[in-house]
C-alpha cells in the first residue's frame, strides 16, 4: 500500500518545497510558544543552574 502511495506522489521533486513548508509551520509554532512564556518564568528557568539547593521548586 505504502509503495502505491509513494508511487502516486506526483513530482517527487516537490519534496524540498513540502519539507520546507513542514519546517516553517513547525518553526512558527515553536517561536509562538517561546514568545508566550512570561518574562519572570524565563528568568526563573534561566537561573536554574544557580538555584539554591534548598529552594522549593514546587510551583508549576
Amino acid at each position, binding site marked *: 500500500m505504502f509503495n502505491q502511495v509513494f508511487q502516486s506522489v506526483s513530482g517527487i*521533486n516537490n519534496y524540498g518545497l513540502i519539507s520546507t513548508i513542514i519546517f516553517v509551520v*513547525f518553526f512558527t509554532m515553536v517561536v509562538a510558544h517561546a514568545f508566550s512564556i512570561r518574562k519572570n518564568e524565563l528568568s526563573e528557568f534561566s537561573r*536554574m*543552574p*544557580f538555584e539554591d539547593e534548598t529552594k522549593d521548586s514546587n510551583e508549576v
Partner: protein
Amino acid sequence: MENQTFYYDNKTVKLFAYATLFWGVIGMVVGLLLALQFIWPQLTFGIPYTTFGRIRPIHTNAVIFAFVGNGMFTGVYYSLQRLCKARMFSDILSKINFWGWQLIIVAAALTFAFGFTTGKEYAELEWPIDILVAVIWIVFGWNMIGTIIKRRTRHIYVAIWFYLATFVTVAVLHVANSIEIPITLFKSYIVYAGVQDALVQWWYGHNAVAFFLTTPFLGLMYYYLPKAANRPIYSYRLSIVHFWALIFLYIWAGPHHLIYSALPNWAQSLGVVFSVMLIAPSWGGMVNGLLTLRGAWDKVREDPVLKFMVVAVTAYGMSTFEGPMMSTKTVNAISHFTDWTVGHAHIGALGWNGFMTFAVLYWLIPRIFQTNLYSRKLANTHFWIGTLGIIFYAVPLYWGAITQFLMWKEFTAEGFLKYPNFLETVTQLKPMYAARAVGGALYISGIVIGIYNLIITIRQGKFLAEEAASAPALEPISGKRVTGEGAHRWLERRPIQFTIVALIAILIGGIIEIVPLYLVKTNIPTIASVKPYTPLELQGRDIYVREGCYTCHSQQVRPFRSETERYGQYAKAGEYVYDHPFQWGSKRNGPDLSREGVVNGRQYKPNSWHYNHMLNPQKLNAQSIMPVYKWLIADDLDISTTARKIRVMQMLGVPYPADFDKIANEELMKQASLISADLKSQGIDCAPNKEIIALIAYLQRLGVDIHSAGLSAVVSGNPVK
C-alpha cells in the same frame, strides 16, 4: 514540602573524566601517526595492524566515541544530577554505563586493528559490538530518564532537552544504520545496498556529528557556560527556538555528503536546502553562548575555562557556517573529496568538542576534588598551544584543498588534463601534510600540559565522592495539563512525553528522505549489464573493506569533465545495487577506483601491476604514499566463508542462481587459477589461494559492468548469469 538530604555521585563523574583524558591522548596520538604516514608511508611498519586503512577508524572512533563520548558522559553525569537536584537514578546503571563504554572502546580498537570492520565510516563496528553499543546506550538513557523522573525541580532545564534528544536520536541512528546479517562472529553484510546504503550511512554519519558531537555539547554549554561566567544564559527564549529548530533541521542534512553522487537529485536538493537553513539555529546557539558573556568579557582575559569556552563556541560557529557553505553545489563541487572536509571536521572536533571538553574538565575537577586548579598559567599555556595547534592543523589543509581541486580540474589549452597522474597532485601536498602534523603535535602537547596540571590539582585536593545536597521533594501534581498550562509548558515537565515528541521531530526528516528511496523504483534505475560479483570478487571485495581502502580511495565518479576525463564514465545508481556495503568513500588521498577494471580505460592496470603495487608501492613510484600490503601476498584466502557469504547475499536479494553456494568455491578457484596463470606469464609466481589474487579479481571487476566491452577475458571466471 519537607527538605530532603541526598548525595550527588561524583565517583562516576571522576571515572568518566579520567577516561576522557586517557582516550583523548590515545586517539590523538593515533591521529598523529596517521598524519605522519602521509609524509612517511613506511610508518605503517609493513604490518597490517598499523596500516592507514585500519588505524584511521581507530583514530576517528577513539576521538569521537572515546574522548568526546567520555567527555560528554562526564559533563552530563555532573550537570544532570545538579539540574535535577537528585542523585543518578541507579549506581549500578552508572557503573554498567562506564565500564560497558570502556569495554566497547577496547573492543573497537582491537577489532579494527585486526581488520574486522563493516566498512561504513564512523559505523565500522561489527555486529556483536553494535549490539553492545545499543545495550549500553539504553542503559545510559534509562539512567538519565530515571534521574529526570525522580528530580526535585518542576521544570526541566534546556540543557537536559539536548541530552534527551541526544539519547533518543543516537539510538535511532545507530540501530537503523547497523542492521546487518552476520556471516561469522566478526563479519556481516549490511542489509542496504549501494545508493540506499549510502543514504542511510550519511543520514547516520551526518547526524552522528549532529547528535553525538553537537547536541550534547550544546547541553553542556547551556549548563557550564553560565556557571563559569556566573550569569544566566543570554536568552532562554532563544534556547527554546534553538533546540527545536536544530533537532528538526539537522536530521535532513545527511544527503549533503552525497552531492553530485548517484543519489537521486531530489534527495540531494533536500540535503542542500536543510543544510543552508541549519545556519539559523546553529548561529542562534552560538550567539546565545557568546552573548551570555556580555559584560563579563574581562573575565575571559583571566579565566582559562572561559577562554576555552569562547574559542569552542566560536569554532562551533565557524564550523556551522562552513558546513552549510560546503553543502551548496557550487562549493561542494570543489571541496568534496579534498582535505577541506578534513580541515572542517577538525575545526569542529578540536575546537568545539575538544576545547569545550577541557573547559568542563578544568571547571569540574577542582570542584569535585575540593581545591583550586593547580596552575592557571599552565592552563593558559594549554589554551594557547591548543589554539595554535588548531590553526596549524586547519590552515595547511585548506591550502592543500585549494591546491588539490585546482590541480584536479586544470586542463591544458589543448583540452587535456594538465595533471593526469593523480600522484602529481599528492606530492604537491606533502609540505601541507607536514604542517598539519605539526599542528596535531602542538594540540597533543597542550593536552599533555593540561593532564599534568589536572594531576597535580587532583593530588593536592581531596576527592568528594558523595556530595551532600538538600532540596524539598517535588510535590506530585497531575500528569495532565493544569489550568493555564500551555502544551509546551506541560511537555517541559514530562520527560518521557518530551522524548517522544523529540523523536517524532527527528523521524519526520528521516522518513521523508529515506522511505521513498526504497519504495519508488524509479529512484534507482537498474542496469541490465550489472551482475553480482563472482565468489572470488566477493572475497576480494571483503579484503578491500577489511583493509579500509575506502579511507583513501573513492568509488564515485562525479559528473564533471575533469573527473570523466580522469577516470571514465560518471557514477550511476544502478551499478551499485549489489554492493553491501557501498564503498564510495569521502576522501581522495589516492585516485578513484570505480573504473579500475575497464580494459583500455584511463585507470586500467594489468594484474602484475596490482601485485607489484601491493608488494611495494614505492618501488613503482618513489613518491607514492600508498602503504605496503605484503601480507596479502603471503596470506591464504579464507574460503570457508564463501558459501555462507553467497547465501547471505541471496537473502539480501542478490540474484545468484539456486544452489550457487554449493559450487561457489569451485568457481572461485577457477577464476583464481586464471589470474595466477596470468601473473605467471608476467614472471610472478603466486599461488591461486592467496589473498592478493582475490583483491586483484575485485579491482579488475570495478567499472566493467557498465562498459560494453564486458568482463575482462583475463580475470573473469564464469560470469554469474
